[in-house]
């Protein structure tokens, strides 16, 4: 399509080569590590397609190709873009935010598990939950601060409290949750302190302090696990935003399942009953939510089904199902319980990464921005008489 020209810049050559390699046809699935992948590729490498169907594209997406409504197979979408460039800026968040989604949920699930263990006299669940919660929330803080463009300024988050900013709300939720989870975990050390002297006093006071802190942490935990759904949905990233009804459900389920995983790993089978039931509930929410996200959103479900996000979410589903099956069937075996717990933890992590990268992929390709919006405009035009 272009005549021979003297060699020019590097980025241009990459652009032309990719066009030549991929043609103007839409690929069935993004290539490995393509638009869906590579975190730090926030630069402007153009995705495969520039424009489609010049003549007669007035009709919008159903450009006479394939009919069919909003079924699983999304019809070929014809759309126009500026040299195939993304309209949106892809999230600059790197993998550590996806990891935080997991560790934050894990902390929340573990705190709930710990509080349940504490109130119903299951010390193994309590101890494992509290210790995991502290570890996970510490890792969360590291991930969050590390992902900032200016990590040394992390405390600027504490200047304001804004309900319109889920990140601000999340900061305060973490600020309330973190210390409580920390105190509850430290209280687990009470038994190791000497019985007499100054340490003895501390040792005698610690369990009740830990009790209160554990309940406080458990109180904040559901908020900690679900606000991240709003965090992702409250963006212009098409596949995140449109999934706003489901994301908190997925994340709540995923958090429960990971907390249950900790219980299954750490507790003897006799104490692990509640963890098994938590695993079932969490898995149900998680599977329901991801299924909805993968099917309800029409074109915007596509990023969750293809490429790396698709593989991650499929792996997550497999791990969740096997984790729950193992927890229910192997209820007498410590080993099967531990394996199930590991599977649930892995499922939770993998699902978070799948949701995260699905959204990133949807922002990188102008199709997901233009086509739904163009449909909206066209619907308004045909609906509202002779407008434009």
């Amino acid at each position: 399509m272009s005549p021979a020209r003297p060699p020019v810049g590097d980025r241009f050559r990459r652009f032309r080569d990719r066009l030549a390699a991929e043609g103007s046809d839409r690929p069935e699935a993004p290539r490995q590590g393509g638009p869906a992948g590579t975190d730090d590729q926030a630069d402007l490498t153009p995705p495969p397609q520039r424009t489609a169907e010049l003549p007669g594209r007035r009709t919008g997406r159903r450009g006479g190709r394939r009919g069919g409504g909003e079924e699983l197979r999304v019809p070929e979408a014809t759309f126009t873009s500026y040299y195939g460039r993304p309209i949106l800026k892809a999230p600059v968040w790197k993998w550590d935010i996806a990891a935080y989604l997991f560790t934050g949920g894990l902390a929340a699930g573990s705190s709930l598990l710990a509080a349940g263990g504490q109130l119903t006299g299951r010390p193994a669940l309590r101890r494992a939950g509290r210790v995991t919660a502290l570890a996970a929330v510490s890792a969360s803080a590291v991930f969050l601060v590390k992902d900032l463009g200016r990590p040394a300024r992390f405390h600027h988050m504490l200047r304001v409290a804004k309900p319109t900013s889920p990140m601000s709300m999340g900061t305060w939720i973490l600020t309330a949750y973190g210390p409580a989870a920390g105190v509850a975990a430290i209280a687990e050390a009470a038994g190791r302190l000497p019985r007499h002297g100054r340490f003895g006093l501390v040792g005698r006071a610690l369990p009740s302090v830990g009790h209160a802190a554990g309940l406080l942490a458990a109180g904040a935990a559901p908020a900690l696990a679900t606000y991240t759904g709003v965090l992702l949905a409250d963006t212009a990233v098409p596949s995140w935003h449109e999934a706003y009804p489901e994301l908190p459900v997925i994340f709540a389920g995923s958090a429960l399942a990971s907390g249950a995983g900790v219980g299954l790993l750490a507790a003897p089978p006799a104490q692990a009953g509640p963890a098994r039931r938590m695993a079932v509930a969490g898995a149900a929410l998680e599977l329901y939510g991801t299924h909805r996200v993968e099917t309800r959103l029409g074109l915007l479900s596509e990023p969750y089904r293809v490429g790396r996000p698709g593989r991650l979410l499929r792996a997550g589903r497999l791990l969740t199902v096997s984790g729950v099956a193992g927890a229910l069937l192997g209820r007498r075996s410590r080993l099967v319980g531990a394996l199930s717990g590991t599977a649930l933890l892995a499922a939770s992590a993998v699902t978070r990464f799948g949701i995260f990268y699905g959204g990133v992929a949807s922002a990188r390709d102008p199709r997901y921005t233009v086509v739904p919006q163009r449909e909206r405009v066209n619907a308004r035009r045909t609906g509202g008489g002779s407008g434009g």
Partner: protein
Amino acid sequence: MLPDPNSLYGPLDPAPDAGYEDAPPRMGFFTDTSVCIGCKACEVACKEWNGVPQSGLDLLGMSYDNTGALTANSWRHVAFVEQPRPADVLGAPVADGAGPQFLGMPGSQPPGRGSGAEDRTDFRWLMMSDVCKHCTHAACLDVCPTGSLFRTEFGTVVVQEDICNGCGYCISACPYGVIDQRKDDGRAWKCTLCYDRLGAGQTPACAQACPTESIQYGPLEELRERAAARVATLHERGVPEARLYGHDPNDGVGGDGAFFLLLDEPEVYGLPPDPVVTTRDLPKMWKRAGLAALAMAAATVAAFVGGSS
């Protein structure tokens, strides 16, 4: 604390809503792309005045656009769209949304000169100086967790670089893909609508430098009137594809502080056809999160209370 029912969505005067008393009239840009000549004086003037660093020389193969997009280091971006257009319909409306076509520019010769007459095509060349839209409902501002982004008394949206900690939330939130993270710096940057110049009663650098008055600066009300008149004139003169973009206070972002006159569909220029501020759905999102949180708590209680083991 949401004083105005339209705080998150719908028509609104942003400066009083942000708490300014006796705010001056809302200021903005009207970019009339029908007279843009693609000189990029706006890009240069912006960089000069605001001290925006360069982002390196590169050739993108997108007509004469080697800036590529609005980025942290380009607060004005001149788009060049080359469209084929058969000679017999020149002057008639082009099929809406015919996408940018690569006609081989830039080259040392006009298109078709080297290849013979039969390969020549008529085409039109659209240019547009893009900029931050300074939305009425600015998602970047709403989601900023540090208060670094703020609404000025002129109704514009500005980043305070001494506050921004580079969390990147605004970047994902912007429905236009304007605000961006500067790589070696970590913070988010975008057009300030020359807040410093506005305060001194001056015109923003890009509008000042524009040689064709394609970029017009002034009170938004006045600009909207001027734009409507300009569209009417163009329609009269046989340019029926002229349309305004971002002028309507009833659109998804409550109207833009910087709006445009375009000669084709917005996506041809790399603009979203129907942007909606993400915070429109925020109350519903919090509600869903609340329900999910309750479900989570209930499931935990049930797990510990119910059952035998």
